């Protein structure tokens, strides 16, 4: 079951990436999939630059590196619908 939990370590680990995504008009959120993994979700705001979204392999590289400092690993990245 997916859980929206408060996990400061994950918030802290992803904060810099959240700020970077916000600069292109995207919102980052995440939820735990189980005790060891999280799924990251990217949503577009009305101001999002559609062509500016970081390529998924690069996104995964950033988040894997960031989450390495936490007890969690990346399960998946869910992109805005238009990017699937």
């Amino acid at each position, binding site marked *: 079951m997916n859980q929206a939990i408060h996990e400061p370590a994950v918030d802290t680990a992803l904060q*810099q990436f959240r*700020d*970077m995504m916000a*600069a292109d008009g995207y919102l980052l959120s995440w939820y735990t999939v189980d005790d060891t993994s999280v799924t990251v979700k990217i949503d577009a705001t009305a101001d999002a630059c559609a*062509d*500016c979204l*970081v*390529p998924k392999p690069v996104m995964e590289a*950033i988040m894997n*590196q960031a989450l390495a400092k936490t007890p969690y690993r990346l399960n998946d990245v869910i992109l805005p619908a238009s990017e699937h």
Partner: protein
Amino acid sequence: MNGTELLLDPTGLDGSADESFLAPRPVSLRGLTLGLLDNTKPNATQLLNEIAALLQEKHGVATAKLYTKDYFGTPVKDELLRQVVDEVDIVVTAVGDCGSCSAATVADGILLERAGIPTVSIVSDSFNMSGRAMASVQGFPGFDFHAVPHPVASLDGEQIRERAEQALPQILRILGVES
């Protein structure tokens, strides 16, 4: 239409993706031809032209040639890459001031280095993380590029000139020549 479409890999990965070495550095910039690889983002041309002017005026670069990508979000296409490699000695490419374009700007630098051309990729510091991640994805985690303060797109001419002047020492360092 035959129903096929061309899919571009946003990472620019190819068979050389495990090569993590720099092109040989010049002893000096005197007499060299500088390539400016413009990714079409706002103020990229202006920033590159200011950098070229400084390198010509202060460091003896002979000529500068401007090349323009057709899309900022993916690495340079092979045809343009080959043209740049054939025609110049060193390259500065800019400006990675968004997620996709910062990644692509770093990928361009790595592709050019692997083709033997010393290259400086310029991103904005808000997207340093994206550039660094692309370098890792490319198998070149230590690739050295320069981050200028964000933003770039909204700057006026004088501010662009200041960005270029501030960036010059790092550009020279990455190219391997003394400032």
